[in-house]
């Protein structure tokens, strides 16, 4: 009997859990490690922050993995790619035949002056349930004045999320009858509210229609919470009463040898088609942890997990760079940001269907992680039917 290949997966989030559950256990000995016992469905932070949702948004990683996949609750302290070793924070060492890093990305509060104070006061919806709850409390206590959302820097998880928060906040204040007393301002460092032009053509008219102000080319430098003013790098000032900053994210905090696989902000460089870590055919990085030029979003982790699982089984599977980011536009409307390496973002118009598809996805999320063998054919059919090359010819 041939010995099983040892696969170590660092991270039990969307990418790591799906990868582990996609591997045949008669061929692979799969171990998932994670610092946290929980897998979080991060997109739900939006609804905690702006709808006050109390729906549970985490599950134990152990419960989500197939029987037969091992789980070790411990952080990885260091990875030695040359010697195929992972040293855990509990002192143990794991050796592997294949390594998959799926550690995600994390917000940083050190790049913008005064950022921490603002998060402690008003929260945000890219870090934790506790902070998302703070946003909900902050918007509930604002009866008049300015509610501001500022994109603090790149990258961050989920490109549509800043505007989703803005749209849901506008709906919230209108429903409370406070829309004439609360001004809503959205500031971004880009030339337009949504960075990709075709999607901007969908959302910019909605911002205008709903009376939401927006400021472009605003690169946030520092925030003075005493004076309640946010200042750009060129000295422009934005006054607020409640401020939510989309925090810039950084990559892994593990030590990695060789160090030159990391970018300056600690994302791991990899081949954009195969997810192989630069220079290594036995190590991969998937999802937000990677530096490949694609949006940081669950669908990327999901698709890359499928590609890497097939590559480990000897297939020449390759990523198309497909994105499929659900975009809540408020008032029960939604769209999707759909693109791939070869096709620009599709100008998909707002619809109730797109919003309901987002909610249906959220409702089925745990089942999708747990049973990829049931969901893979459904996703394959969906992605084929919605290829950006096809949709791009319909929505021009």
């Amino acid at each position: 009997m041939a010995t099983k290949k040892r696969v170590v997966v660092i991270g039990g989030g969307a990418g790591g859990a799906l990868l582990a559950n996609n591997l045949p256990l008669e061929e692979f000995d799969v171990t998932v490690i994670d610092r946290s016992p929980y897998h979080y469905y991060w997109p739900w932070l939006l609804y905690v922050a702006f709808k006050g949702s109390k729906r549970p948004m985490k599950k134990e990683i152990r419960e989500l993995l197939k029987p037969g996949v091992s789980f070790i609750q411990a952080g990885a302290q260091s990875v030695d790619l040359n010697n195929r070793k992972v040293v855990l924070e509990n002192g143990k060492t794991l050796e592997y035949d294949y390594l998959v890093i799926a550690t995600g990305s994390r917000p940083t509060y050190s790049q913008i002056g005064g950022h921490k104070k603002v998060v402690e006061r008003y929260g945000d919806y890219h870090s934790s349930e506790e902070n998302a709850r703070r946003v909900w409390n902050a918007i509930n206590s604002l009866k008049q004045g300015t509610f501001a959302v500022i994109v603090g820097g790149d990258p961050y998880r989920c490109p549509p999320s800043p505007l989703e928060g803005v749209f849901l906040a506008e709906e919230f204040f209108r429903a409370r009858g406070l829309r004439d007393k609360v001004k809503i301002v959205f500031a971004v460092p880009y030339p337009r509210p949504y960075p990709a032009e075709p999607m901007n053509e969908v959302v910019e008219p909605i911002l205008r229609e709903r009376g939401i102000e927006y400021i472009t080319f605003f690169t946030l430098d520092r925030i003075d919470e005493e004076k309640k003013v946010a200042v750009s790098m060129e000295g422009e000032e934005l006054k607020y009463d409640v401020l939510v900053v989309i925090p810039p994210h950084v990559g892994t905090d593990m030590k990695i040898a060789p160090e030159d696989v990391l970018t300056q902000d600690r994302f791991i460089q990899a081949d954009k088609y195969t997810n192989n870590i630069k220079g290594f055919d036995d190590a991969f990085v998937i999802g937000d942890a990677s530096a490949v030029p694609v949006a940081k979003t669950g669908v990327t982790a999901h698709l890359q997990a499928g590609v890497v699982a097939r590559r480990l089984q000897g297939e020449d599977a390759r990523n198309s760079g497909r994105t499929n980011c659900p975009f809540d536009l408020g008032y029960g409307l939604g769209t999707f940001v759909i693109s791939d390496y070869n096709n620009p973002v599709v100008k998909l118009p707002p619809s109730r269907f797109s919003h309901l598809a987002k909610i249906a996805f959220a409702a089925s999320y745990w089942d999708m992680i747990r049973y990829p063998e049931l969901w893979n054919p459904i996703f394959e059919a969906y992605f084929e039917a919605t290829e950006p090359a096809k949709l791009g010819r319909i929505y021009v």
Partner: protein
Amino acid sequence: MAENRIRVDARGIACPGPITELVKAYRNAKNGDIIEVLATDPGFKPDVEAWIKRTGNQLLELKEEGGIYIAVIKVTAKK
């Protein structure tokens, strides 16, 4: 003070857009630094021109070679 040259390779980035990569590099840069951006998205040219106009940084060079846009920017507008 030695001039620091930052190279940003945004080739192949369509979503969310190469301009986000420029902004990221700008955040970490100091006045006097040079940022060189490579991009393939045709939207990059008008975006970088508009960005220069609004932020007041200096565009040293903007050219296209075989489908690749190269922008060389001197950071001068930070306060």
